[in-house]
């Protein structure tokens, strides 16, 4: 097929269709409007269904209904809209419905602003829905990876019968890059054992529900879900480790931040600074194992476009062996390479002084 | 002769008395002597021979307690 110059939002839509997603339910919110627009244009050409819902709440509940069929279903939104979807995400997790939610984060809290941000790390990885549940979250750093992770998200959702989120920021959604859309082949997963289709020749009715009024039954259900999450933690961690073998300072950054960080690391490496990067690709499960082999690390810098939401995960990963602090900008602003490089150099001199 | 023959699933009954209130020939009552498995005093039929087969009782029953078979249609 070859490379095409595409916008991030279009890559989301095209990759979902490539993954066999025929159903999309969404609601307009900036900066992700090009995703529903793309789906409205493209899905009907493939006998698919696009519905513009009356709200993000309705959209995720349409996803809940459509996902009950066992077919691949997606919705997308941005920060305040994802907040509205949390109820439905909790229901999908409780009822074990596979589906993909694309979150394009903008600056908050509240209405915030429409410029890029990574201030939805906690929203994505902790979720705002009720109950004991988790949602795998994938955070690509470029549009090629976005295409792969959208497809991967559908597979993981099917594999574990759980909602999966792809978290990008406004920048990735709006930027253009050359992308080669390649369909990734995954094992087929059959949902006939549970999907709601109309009973037809089956003896038993299929019921999609998250209600368990008997305490012991709900406890059993919670344990079952928990076992799935444990499996996800064990099998689905993803991270890129960049120049960490001898790194004294390790930058931890994902998405757009990691792109800037990579350039800064390359710049500093040219000057002989021993700096590297861990780039979490799965934010939940957080790639703790990537931190297990950092022989020279003396300092960790969590670089993100938030006030430091990922810091707590990095501290856990550090096992308190080295200090962890935050660097970044918020409100829709981006840090520059020179800002990040001077931060890294400052921390480096602290580390040297302490030695 | 009865035009309808009630088949009563007494253990489903919750004793709400709606059937009793709509029987035009007033032949239904609660069974005050014997509770059913749920502990309710269920409905019962006092004079089966008087049933006119109107099905009002079954139509208003919220709990699928009553089914009605055809009785004798030549008389009454």
């Amino acid at each position, binding site marked *: 097929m070859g490379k095409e110059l595409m916008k991030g939002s279009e890559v989301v839509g095209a990759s979902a269709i490539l993954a066999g997603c025929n159903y999309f339910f969404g609601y307009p919110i900036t900066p992700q409007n090009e995703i529903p627009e793309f789906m409205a244009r493209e899905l009907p050409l493939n006998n698919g269904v696009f519905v513009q819902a009356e709200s993000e709440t309705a959209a995720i509940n349409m996803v809940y209904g459509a996902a009950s069929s066992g077919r691949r279903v997606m919705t997308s939104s941005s920060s305040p809209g994802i907040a509205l979807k949390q109820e*439905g995400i909790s*229901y999908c997790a409780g009822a074990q419905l596979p589906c993909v939610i694309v979150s394009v984060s903008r600056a908050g809290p509240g209405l915030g602003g429409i410029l890029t941000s990574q201030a939805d790390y906690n929203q994505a990885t902790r979720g705002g829905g009720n109950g004991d549940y988790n949602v795998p979250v994938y955070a690509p750093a470029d549009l090629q990876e976005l295409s792969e992770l959208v497809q991967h998200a559908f597979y993981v959702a099917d594999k574990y019968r759980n909602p999966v989120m792809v978290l990008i920021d406004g920048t990735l959604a709006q930027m253009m890059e050359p992308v080669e859309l390649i369909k990734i082949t995954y094992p087929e997963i059959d949902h006939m054992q549970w999907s*709601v*289709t109309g009973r037809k020749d089956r003896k038993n009715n299929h019921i999609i529900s998250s209600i368990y009024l008997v305490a012991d039954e709900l406890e059993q259900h919670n344990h079952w879900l928990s076992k799935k999450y444990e499996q996800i933690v064990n099998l689905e961690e993803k991270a890129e480790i960049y120049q960490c073998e001898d790194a004294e300072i390790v930058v931890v950054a994902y998405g757009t931040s990691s792109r800037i960080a990579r350039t800064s690391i390359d710049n500093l490496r040219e000057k002989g600074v021993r700096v590297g990067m861990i780039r979490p690709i799965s934010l939940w499960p957080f790639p703790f194992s990537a931190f297990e082999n950092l022989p020279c690390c003396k300092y960790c810098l969590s670089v993100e476009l938030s006030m430091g939401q990922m810091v707590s995960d990095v501290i856990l990963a550090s096992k308190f062996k080295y200090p962890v602090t935050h660097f970044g900008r918020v409100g829709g602003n981006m840090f520059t390479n020179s800002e990040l490089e001077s931060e890294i150099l400052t921390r480096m001199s602290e580390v040297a002084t302490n030695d | 002769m009865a035009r309808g023959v009630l088949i009563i699933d007494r253990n489903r009954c919750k004793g709400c008395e709606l059937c009793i209130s709509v029987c035009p020939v007033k032949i239904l009552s609660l069974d005050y002597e014997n509770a059913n498995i749920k502990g309710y005093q269920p409905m019962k039929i006092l004079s089966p021979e008087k049933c006119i087969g109107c099905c009002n009782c079954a*139509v208003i029953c919220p709990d*699928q307690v009553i*089914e009605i078979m055809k009785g004798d249609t030549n008389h009454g």
Partner: protein
Amino acid sequence: MTDFLFQKTNGLTDKQTHYCPGCTHGIIHRLVAEVLEDLNVVEETIAIASVGCSVLSYEYFNTDSIQASHGRAPAVATGIKRVFPNQIVFTYQGDGDLASIGLAEIIAAAGRGENITVIFVNNAIYGMTGGQMAPTSLVGQKTSTSPLGRNPLLAGMPLKMCEIMSQIPSVEYVSRVSTHSPLAIRQAKVAIKKAFENQRANRGFSFVEILSSCNIGWGLPPVEALKWIESRMISYYPLGVYKDGKDLE
């Protein structure tokens, strides 16, 4: 020829309901199930249960079912109906679910003219949570959150959903029926049947409001509660067909 004048429907499971004695939910369940059986669509039907007293209705309808979150049944119905346009999809919602928390979803599904059937059970109160004021509680009606009776100056007048729904252009059919007598129940079945026939014929969104009792919530014996529907509710919520056919340009 059958030997039965009245027989249980296979549209319901054998499961005994959790409803209070005399609650008309059981009647409405049966009517819906009988219609599904009459139309021979039990095995191609997907029921959407809502939140409220009928939250467990999926245990009683002998169909595939999806349990929706509070008020969102029409959105869930939209999702599955768009995947299976040839299956019969209906929501079964109470007045708290449909006329309060789920207003946006019901109006929007109607606005899109979704080809679904909505069974709206109006018993003028929140039954499941213990008898709080509903958007449909009558003026003066005492509930646990309107202990002095619903005051229209504070809570406004009760919402008339059939009248609202019938104003929406893409809606095909709107009817209000009742469960207060055997005759009313037989008429209710006619409306419910029409609403499902419409869906089968792809005519679009059909809405049946069924006046229902909540004897426990109203503090009345079951038989008195049916009289209350007749004497109090019907005058404010007149029965009849409010709409039969879309308004198309």
